[in-house]
């Protein structure tokens, strides 16, 4: 079943139950406003969501029930048990229809008839029972009438021509709408309904019959008829008008049907001459000559004549479609010649499909501009609507956001630049003029439409190699459709990614097999063959992994794009002057990694704005420029994406952090004594530590750097912080490009195997015992002129000492990088490198210190992966 329908069925049952229970409660206590509100809302919600499905009778029945409940709610109609019975009956019926939807995904065949009868009963209580449209309501909704309506010519030529030029497809809908005479009593607003109808090109309103004399006219009954031309599909229009579909007559016509010349035919030899000449040009494909002939003749004849009208249509055709619509042009030329428009000879469908090219991107763009202008015009309307002063300022900000975004969407840099001034003008003087002027010209400075060769796949010029999927943005920021791109559901890619990850792990099993073949079964030949085969599979899986990864890569600009706005708003609120610098937006990373990065980044940026950068006065006093700089930089380092957020603010005071941590009991006094500044500053990552005494309403929502750290670690990354008091703070986040597979090195210690993430490993060395020196309590050795401290893994893991330790004359040392420090870790031996899926510690292992996760090895063993940062 369609998932949307599957969602709807239980929801509908729930709402019916709520409504039913409410109705019963109402019968006992008819005065309870809150109960009647609940019932009304349940029915209202049901009507709204049923509108998403093709269940017209259900929607209309619920609509009638809602109307009746609405009257009861406002007290227009007193509730009696008769009404309650009828409403409950109707709700029961709807319940049965929902059952039918569940089993057959359709309403019972008699639904339409049953609905008509029920609706009649429900509406009989309403102020003016309306039965006018019900006879026609049973007519099938989808009958397509292609006959051209006789009222089409009543649209002025100019309106039809504007519609003709604005059309985005070869066919359009000509439809009329006669609202129910009682519609005002049911809260319907036909004008609003028309205003929101899809794709309106032009519209006429008038009396459906001559108006009655003034004395006998009832101003409260609707006697209007609307005639409309819409550039939309039949299905869309049906759906929009579904509540009143029986009052609508829809015809689908060809755009050429609009080109019907009007006026009184003139006579004379000049028209015959024109016809011969025009046909010659048409046959010769000479558009310019034809256009010249048309405009010459137009200057000579009466503009109101039939021929002038036909000539204007020839011009419209030429300017919209060139010589493409030859058949239509010939008809119009014949009309000029003879004073009568010949009937269209070809089958309508043939003209439309053969002569009409598919809408080009340019036309799509035009429609987009129109929608954008409509939205912009609504913003002016919003501002003209009086509002509570407490929210007027906020509303203006929202309008400014919308207008700015529209300008961005259309690449209208003029509007984007002028907007702040116009908004200020309105805020200060209430003058809408500048804003209105901007809105009217929205998109007029639109960027050049790219030449077709940038869009068409058949272009001779290849797309530059540098154009990555994420880089399909032109210099105006417009996103252009790339040719031959597949849109794929992310879950499909994810499941492939998971399979690849499993494959990589399964592949590791082959090397165990090779070892077993050699050691257990004594077959070196088989072992070698397995190893050869392993190499092949290894290469293929790597290729596969790189390929799938590439599909999931997205530029970090996806995450960065919200920052300019965020920084502007917050700095304005805090009264700070801040310049935002963003670098490396094109850096790419896995989609999941980026998503996990979004929230920590916002926290980091907010911290910088709130606690880092000082107010202009403070900055001046400290001898810095008034404007602070917040810098967000992204770059790729090997298999990591590195994001740095830095500011030139006041930095973090290590003494204050230390004092606070001491006060809160996060560290012991001895530890505080030993700590250097860098370590003290990194205490901000501890939960519950904030150096700012009063909690700000920006970053003080109980989340801080500890949240950043845990989010980053969860994504398999690390975060570090450097700060110089008075000069600024730099937070660096390193995240793996992908979260799926981790490369690790395995080592042996006391007969156990442990994993270390490859990115921590600097090198492995063997160090002679006499080269290990003691400095105070610490063992060290020298590696290429650098003193490296030594840590013994067995000791760190509290594994038992063994006698052989003291006798070894050489130690296996793995030099690892922890943060920016290097440490030599003494282990018992080095083992192989592996690619594994590291799973977080779960169940009894959860919270085990010193380990970051587990991985399943090819032979079924579970490997513990060390968390060096925590251990050393």
């Amino acid at each position, binding site marked *: 079943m369609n998932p*949307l329908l599957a969602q709807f069925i239980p929801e509908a049952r729930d709402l019916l139950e709520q409504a039913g229970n409410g109705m019963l409660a109402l019968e006992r206590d008819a005065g309870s406003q809150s109960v009647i509100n609940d019932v009304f809302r349940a029915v209202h919600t049901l009507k709204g*969501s049923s509108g998403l499905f093709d269940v017209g009778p259900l929607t209309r029945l619920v609509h009638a029930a809602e109307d009746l409940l609405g009257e009861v709610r406002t007290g227009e109609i007193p509730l009696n048990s008769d009404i309650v019975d009828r409403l409950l009956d109707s709700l029961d019926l709807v319940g049965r229809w929902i059952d039918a939807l569940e089993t057959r995904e359709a309403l019972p065949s008699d639904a339409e008839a049953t609905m008509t009868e029920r609706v009649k009963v429900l509406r009989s209580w309403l102020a003016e029972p309306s039965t006018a449209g019900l006879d026609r309501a049973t007519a099938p909704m989808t009958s397509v009438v292609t006959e051209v309506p006789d009222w089409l010519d009543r649209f002025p030529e100019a309106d039809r021509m504007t519609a003709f030029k604005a059309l985005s497809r070869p066919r359009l809908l000509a439809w009329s709408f006669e609202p129910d005479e009682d519609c005002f009593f049911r809260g319907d607003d036909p004008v609003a309904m028309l205003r929101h109808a899809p794709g309106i090109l032009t519209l006429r309103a008038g009396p459906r019959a001559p108006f009655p004399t003034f004395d006998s006219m009832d101003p409260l009954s609707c006697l209007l008829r609307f005639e409309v031309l819409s550039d939309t599909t039949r299905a869309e229009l049906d759906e*929009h008008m579904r509540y009143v579909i029986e009052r609508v007559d829809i015809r689908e016509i060809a755009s050429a049907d609009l080109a019907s010349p009007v006026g009184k035919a003139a006579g004379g030899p000049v028209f015959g001459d024109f016809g011969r000449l025009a046909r010659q040009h048409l046959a010769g494909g000479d558009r310019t000559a034809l256009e010249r002939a048309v405009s010459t003749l137009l200057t000579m004849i009466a503009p109101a004549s039939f021929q002038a009208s036909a000539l204007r249509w020839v011009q419209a055709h030429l300017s919209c479609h060139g010589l493409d619509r030859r058949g239509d042009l010939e008809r119009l030329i014949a009309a000029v010649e003879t004073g009568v428009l010949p009937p269209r000879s070809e089958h309508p469908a043939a003209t439309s499909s053969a002569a009409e090219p598919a809408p080009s991107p340019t036309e799509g763009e035009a429609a987009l501009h129109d929608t954008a202008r409509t939205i912009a015009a609504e913003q002016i309307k919003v501002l003209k609507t009086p509002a509570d002063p407490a929210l007027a300022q906020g509303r203006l900000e929202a309008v400014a956001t919308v207008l700015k975004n529209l300008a961005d969407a259309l690449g209208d840099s003029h509007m984007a630049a002028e907007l702040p001034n116009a908004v200020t003008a309105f805020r200060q003087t209430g003058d809408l003029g500048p804003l209105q002027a901007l809105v009217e010209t929205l998109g007029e400075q639109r960027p050049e439409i790219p030449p077709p060769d940038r869009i068409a796949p058949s272009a001779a010029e290849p797309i530059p190699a540098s154009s990555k*999927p994420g880089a399909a943005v032109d210099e105006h920021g417009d996103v252009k459709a790339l040719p031959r791109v597949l849109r794929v559901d992310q879950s499909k890619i994810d499941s492939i990614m998971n399979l690849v990850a499993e494959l990589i792990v399964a592949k590791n099993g082959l090397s165990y097999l090779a070892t077993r073949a050699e050691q257990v079964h004594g077959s070196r030949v088989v072992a070698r063959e397995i190893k050869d085969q392993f190499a092949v599979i290894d290469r293929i899986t790597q290729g596969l992994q790189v390929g799938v990864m590439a599909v999931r890569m997205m530029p970090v600009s996806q*995450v960065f794009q919200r920052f300019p706005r965020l920084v502007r708003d917050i700095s304005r*609120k805090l009264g700070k002057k801040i310049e935002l610098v963003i670098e490396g937006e094109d850096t790419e990373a896995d989609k999941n990694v980026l998503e996990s990065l979004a929230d920590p980044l916002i926290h980091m940026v907010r911290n910088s704005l709130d606690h880092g950068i000082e107010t202009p006065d403070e900055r001046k006093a400290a001898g810095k420029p008034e404007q602070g700089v917040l810098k967000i930089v992204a770059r790729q380092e090997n298999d990591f994406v590195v994001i740095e957020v830095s500011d030139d603010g006041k930095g973090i005071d290590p003494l204050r952090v230390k004092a606070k941590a001491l006060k809160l009991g996060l560290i012991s006094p001895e530890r505080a004594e030993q700590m250097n500044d860098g370590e003290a500053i990194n205490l901000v990552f501890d939960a519950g530590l904030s150096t700012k005494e009063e909690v700000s309403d920006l970053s003080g929502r109980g989340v801080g750097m500890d949240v950043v750290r845990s989010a980053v670690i969860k994504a398999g990354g690390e975060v570090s912080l450097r700060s110089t008091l008075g000069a600024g703070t730099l937070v660096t986040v390193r995240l793996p490009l992908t979260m799926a597979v981790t490369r690790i090195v395995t080592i042996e210690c006391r007969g156990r195997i442990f994993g270390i993430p490859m990115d921590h490993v600097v090198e492995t060395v063997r160090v002679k015992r006499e080269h290990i020196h003691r400095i105070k309590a610490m063992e060290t050795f020298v590696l290429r002129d650098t003193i490296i401290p030594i840590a013994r893994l067995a000791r760190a893991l509290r594994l038992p000492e063994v006698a052989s330790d003291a006798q070894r004359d050489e130690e296996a040392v793995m030099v690892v990088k922890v943060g920016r420090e290097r440490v030599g870790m003494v282990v018992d031996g080095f083992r192989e490198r592996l690619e594994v899926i590291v799973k977080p510690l779960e169940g009894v292992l959860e919270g085990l210190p010193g380990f970051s996760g587990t991985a399943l090895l090819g032979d079924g063993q579970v490997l513990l992966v060390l968390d060096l940062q925590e251990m050393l």
Partner: protein
Amino acid sequence: MPHVLIIDDSSTTRLYYREILEEAGFVVDEAINGIEGLEKAMNRSFDIFLVDLNMPKMDGYTFLGQIRRTVELEAVPAIMISTQAREADQVKAYAAGANLYMIKPVHAADLTTRSRLITGQGASPRMAS
């Protein structure tokens, strides 16, 4: 990726919008009434709100009024979507702080185009990359 918060008491309607908007490249979050909407809005930043009118506990007008009074949320565009097609409803929505008023049922293409334009994006959804 732009973030959208859908506030509607109908789970079907929320699912309908979610499918359309995810297709159009939005990250979607949902709330079942105005109060839950405010809670979500306070705790993560959104680029646009889609707000139903009639909801239990807190209706769409109240929700809009609240966000327009809150400095951190005031500038986030909002579309109100309702089954009520009267001019007066639209005026009320604009007075409460909506930027656009749409009538249910909303067409997928209309919702996509308007949401994308209002969040500063061009026509075609960015390809899934």
